[in-house]
């Protein structure tokens, strides 16, 4: 309540103190994201300290962290929520304490819109749609178009939205397709590979045109399974991955991946600008999209050196 402005925890300068509740460190993407935010805060003169807390993919831990930030009387709180629902109370507590909240990456349910200032992040459904657009164009004329899907962690927002967006586009465009199988790879290479192996033994790869993997890691795991079965990834079966890590682009350069939908983790600087603006009374749009791209085979080579993670 009474603490606002620059008298936070910092001691040293009179900049702002910001609390950041991160989902966890469950993927390289996430780690890159944390690093980007932490680096940006450290480099930013306006910010004295960034209180970083890793929620280990547990909403209760994240809520506890936010309560702790309120107790520490930070100037603003950034949350990357693990799920969309269940934030009402703690967001209300923050607003009662007069601390503005900015969401990063994932969003919260629409009904809580008044309780945060803005969300900066990716649009998973849009990512799924981008992937879908490419698939719809590429395979528009393919007779008997067959798809395999490696989904993210069952129940997670990116898994749900990337799936929904992808198939929504295919349906909208009236593409005739068969989803041969869709199983989770839990966003990891290990399970991506194992699941792909089982796909191969169960369905074979013949006649299947496309593999849609909800992230790089699973895609890279699947590529190995495909290679080990004696087929050529990228040629015998085309592959779309989401994320765009170095390794993903490398696979693209090697011709093993056909399309990459970027999900950009390096929005630290953009986030700091938004947060400082918010603390100083600015009122940005409810949603600030992160700049993200889509990349086809001809762009892989050029883009690879720009990759951060």
């Amino acid at each position: 309540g009474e603490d606002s402005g620059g008298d936070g925890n910092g001691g040293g300068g009179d900049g702002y103190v910001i609390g950041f509740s991160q989902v966890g460190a469950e993927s390289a993407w996430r780690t890159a994201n944390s690093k980007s935010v932490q680096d940006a805060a450290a480099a930013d003169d306006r910010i004295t300290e960034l209180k970083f807390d890793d929620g280990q993919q547990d909403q209760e831990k994240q809520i506890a962290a936010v309560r702790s930030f309120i107790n520490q009387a930070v100037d603003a709180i950034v949350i990357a929520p693990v799920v969309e629902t269940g934030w009402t109370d703690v967001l209300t507590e923050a607003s009662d304490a007069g601390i503005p909240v900015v969401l990063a990456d994932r969003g919260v349910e629409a009904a809580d819109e008044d309780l945060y200032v803005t969300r900066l992040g990716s649009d998973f459904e849009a990512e799924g749609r981008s992937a879908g657009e490419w698939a719809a164009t590429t395979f528009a004329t393919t007779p008997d178009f067959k798809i395999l899907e490696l989904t993210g962690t069952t129940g997670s927002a990116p898994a749900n939205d990337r799936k929904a967006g992808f198939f929504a586009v295919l349906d909208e465009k009236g593409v005739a397709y068969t989803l041969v199988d869709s199983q989770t790879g839990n966003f990891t290479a290990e399970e991506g590979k194992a699941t792909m192996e089982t796909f191969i033994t169960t369905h074979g790869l013949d006649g299947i045109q496309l593999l849609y993997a909800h992230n790089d890691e699973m895609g890279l795991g699947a590529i190995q399974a495909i290679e080990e079965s004696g087929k050529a990834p990228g040629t015998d079966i085309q592959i779309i991955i989401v994320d765009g890590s170095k390794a993903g682009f490398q696979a693209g350069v090697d011709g093993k991946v056909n399309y990459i939908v970027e999900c950009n983790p390096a929005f630290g600087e953009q986030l700091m600008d938004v947060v400082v603006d918010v603390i100083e009374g600015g009122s940005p749009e409810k949603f600030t999209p992160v700049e993200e791209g889509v990349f086809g085979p001809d762009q892989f080579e050029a883009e690879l050196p720009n990759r951060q993670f």
Partner: protein
Amino acid sequence: MNNALNRVLANQYARRLMWPVLVLLVLIAVNIAVTGFDFIWPHVSDGRLSGAFVNILRRSAPLLLIALGMTLVIATKGIDLSVGAVYAIGAAIACQTIIDGTDQSAAGLIFRAVAIALVATAVIGAWNGTMVAYFGIQPIVATLILMIAGRGIAQLVTGGQIPKVQDSSPFTELGRGEILTVPVPIWIAAAVFAALVLLTRRTALGMLLEAVGGNPEASRLAGIRSKGITVLVYLVCGLCAGLAGLIGAANLGSADANNGGLWIELDAILAVVIGGTSLLGGRFYLLGTAIGVVIIGTLGDTIINIGLSDQWQFTVKAIVVFIVALLQSPEFRAWVFKPFKRRPAAPAAAPAEEVLAK
């Protein structure tokens, strides 16, 4: 014929193994029914043995390694929750060491990476053992510490990244290669299995372990170095977890500090118990553990093969584990099978289903 059967059943090892083996056979039969005989029958293509079942075995190798180590730990009345984290540490150290090197194909570098990873994981195992044996901390707590901190250590090693080894590096052979057409992970797991069986059953180590697990105080008074044995067992368990991590990392060519071997400790414990070893310590059955591992490995494929979506993974696993656990219980068998004793023609599985439905 009947006599021979009775003799086999009188053997306590055989009795322990009968039910898990039965369940495994049923699972295999289901798969064969759905996907054909190819499921079990491997074929050689491109100089490598392949086929669904071989794949299952290859993928189960890391779990088998960990479950074997876990069996020994459990025999001493202990438990090791840190194996998943140790797996990640082993993988992280090996991959990081290799990508820090200049020539990722150099034999010396790979050898060094493997050696460092194994030594580190053995040290971690010994640390767990020391906490249990010399500091008298309950095993679940002692190993919980590394379960929490271990993945942090693995991330520290990789700097939070997922180090990727070049596909051309011979290191990946540990996970992907084959010797005499048989995948390397299967060789490694089989070798460790054989070594542990020999070590425990050809020497007196097995009996001493069972004594320590069965009655620690009596063992001490009988002059057994129970503390030394405890440390040794945790060390072996750590080493097995590290080796499993190496295979996992080699298979993918990368090390994921966060997700590598996640929750593998639960599957390992499950395999040990399905195999007939009691969590209360004492008698242990390495072969039973191996069967338990194959059951768990086959289960995942079965779910996909019979066309269930992945929400069913957990549910089906629960049901199968429940069936095995009940079948292993003499009290349950007495309760269910007794009314049928006089009418041996009655289907034995039906009453089991009823109980489950409840």
